[in-house]
């Protein structure tokens, strides 16, 4: 695998534009290459902004999901490149898995490497995994796997992969009011300026009735509700179901009686609508 090292975090808006302009005619296999950034220094202002937007306590400990936003621009750069076989616009974030091997702080110098793997058929199209690996002094400290779906030719026989466990059928442990501006607030800290998240008008242009919350914000918000323990060694697996339309009110449900915590968000208006299901192991 060819590893290309970049010195700066790629700027996302131009990458999204490039990906949109070059979306036609993509085909073939995944590129045998990875993007890498070394010695990444956490910007404490940025970290605090992220913590506030996602509901984590403010401080130097990196939240479970924080390295994902550091690696996300590399994911987009990889996918925007002409060598990537799937067009970026319209990719749906279906699942996300994160393993925190040890608790990280703003003092850690992070080496981030992102590559794509496991392009495979899915009943509704094709799936690909974008893998982010984070090392500190040569030690693997964090890894994330984001699974995206490209809707297309259906493959009825294709393996759907591991399915989400049922959402606990319990009274809400909490209610989260997600304001209209949530997409813009998360865009400001994640750099993910995909228009479907920013405003009802731009979202409508992309075929959504209203703007939708970033999946990774809903995941981070759910994890932040589970307490500070998620920053330590732990593994999470998130299955995104129906998007959260903005603004809306969602209910948090949690079952942490067993060894694996199952949590999720469902619509407050219609509790049978699941937005995401999450498992967490320590």
């Amino acid at each position, binding site marked *: 695998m060819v590893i290309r090292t970049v010195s700066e975090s790629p700027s996302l808006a131009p990458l999204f534009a490039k990906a949109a302009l070059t979306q036609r005619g993509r085909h073939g296999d995944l590129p045998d290459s990875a993007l890498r950034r070394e010695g990444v220094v956490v910007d404490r202002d940025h970290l605090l902004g992220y913590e506030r937007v996602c509901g984590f306590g403010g401080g130097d400990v990196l939240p479970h999901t924080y390295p994902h936003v550091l690696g996300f621009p590399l994911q987009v750069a990889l996918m925007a490149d002409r060598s990537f076989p799937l067009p970026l616009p319209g990719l749906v974030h279906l699942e996300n898995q994160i393993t925190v091997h040890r608790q990280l702080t703003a003092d850690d110098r992070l080496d981030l490497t992102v590559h794509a793997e496991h392009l495979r058929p899915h009943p509704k199209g094709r799936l690909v995994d974008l893998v982010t690996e984070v090392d500190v002094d040569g030690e693997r400290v964090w890894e994330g796997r984001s699974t995206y779906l490209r809707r297309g030719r259906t493959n009825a026989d294709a393996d759907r992969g591991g399915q989400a466990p049922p959402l606990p059928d319990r009274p*809400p442990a909490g*209610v989260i009011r997600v304001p209209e501006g949530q997409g813009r607030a998360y865009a400001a800290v994640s750099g993910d300026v995909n228009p479907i998240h920013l405003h009802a008008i731009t979202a409508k242009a992309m075929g959504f009735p209203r703007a939708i919350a970033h999946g990774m914000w809903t995941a981070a918000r759910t994890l932040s509700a589970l307490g500070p323990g998620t920053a330590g060694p732990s593994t999470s697996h998130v299955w995104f179901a129906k998007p959260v339309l903005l603004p809306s009110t969602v209910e948090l449900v949690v079952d942490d009686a067993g060894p694996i915590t199952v949590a999720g968000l469902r619509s407050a208006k219609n509790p049978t609508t699941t937005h995401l299901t999450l498992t967490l192991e320590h």
Partner: protein
Amino acid sequence: MSPSASSSRSASRTSGQPRRAAVIGGNRIPFARQNAAYAKASNQDMLTAAIEGLVARHGLAGEQVGEVAAGAVLKHARDFNLTRESVLGSSLSARTPAYDVQQACGTGLEAAILVGNKIALGQIESGIAGGTDTASDAPIAVNEGLRETLLTLNRAKTPGQRVKALTGLRPSQLVPEIPRNVEPRTGLSMGEHMAQTAKQWGISREAQDEIAASSHHNLAAAYDRGFFDDLMTPFLGQTRDQNLRPDSTVEKLATLKPVFGRGEGATMTAGNSTPLTDGASAVLLGSDEWAQERGLPVLAHLVDAQTAAVDYVTGNEGLLMAPAYALPHLLARQGMKLQDFDLVEIHEAFAATVLTTLAAWESEEFCRDRLGLDAPIGALDRDRLNVNGSSLAAGHPFAATGGRIVASLAKMLHEKGSGARGLISICAAGGQGVMAILEAA
């Protein structure tokens, strides 16, 4: 008094224990419904009035007491030194120190425990504990976006930075932040939390309405026999708790629509939940010697206290269940049973709070699995519960409730006779609970 109280008391008293703080008296202003009689009164106005009445009744004008501890739950930023400001506005000596306490609805009782403990340790000879809250004169904060913009502007050093900061202003920032009665970590109101717990414990609507009706009847009867004559100072024309409905009946309460919970299982109404109220209370504590020097009779002593908290955040325990967890510690330390108490005051945050707490103590499963006890704590004789009414009738200005109960219970125990023991249980936001034991002097 019951014979069991005196035997358990003598067993628990060992030499070398610190002295017990005496509850000498209490005073409160009548509680008013939100946006009614006290709509324009501030926390400081009300706390000062409660302290001032206490000072007048006990001849403390110009006196320096050891300290005054009080607080409010809903507090303006300008009230950072609320209690000290109230002391300065009272007839107490200006040399009386004061500090603010805040433990949500446990504030008033916690303040009494703090003052009582300092007296017990001999650090002070006298003190006043109190609390005040207004749901009417509530603090309204500027919009979070506007606040951030203004703070950035304040930090700006150059004209360029100032201009840049001002570009952050948005018309939407004119919408103010109004305090919401929800748990910050769950976004659920206290009523919604309680509705979940009530449903889980299968608490019936009828049982809740019965608690509410007795609260009103008991409080009205206490007024009628003049019980509050030396416990209350009129304020802004009010002489009685505005929420009190002496003619309340289970039948009338049954007609109200549920306001918390969902669907068929919803049982909690405006009648069996405490309304938002305004008011203040204060309690005078001291050493026996201090009281004797001034010729002030002692009503009761503060025997023991216990706080507890539960992990309600992921829904594994009810928000208001913490007092259930505090009790076993008190019973073990005092060598007592729940049934040994002559009087029990369980703050009626909601009628369902009282009923779930009692049900939990009766439950073998709960007492075994959650409290780690070999046997259930058992049932409480309802004739000993909230005999002069509680928050459903009187109202519940959050931080003022502890002082209301301490003063009333001390007087009730005193009426029963020396050695009678009473238990106070108050649940608080954040999954907390505060308990205390008083014993008639």
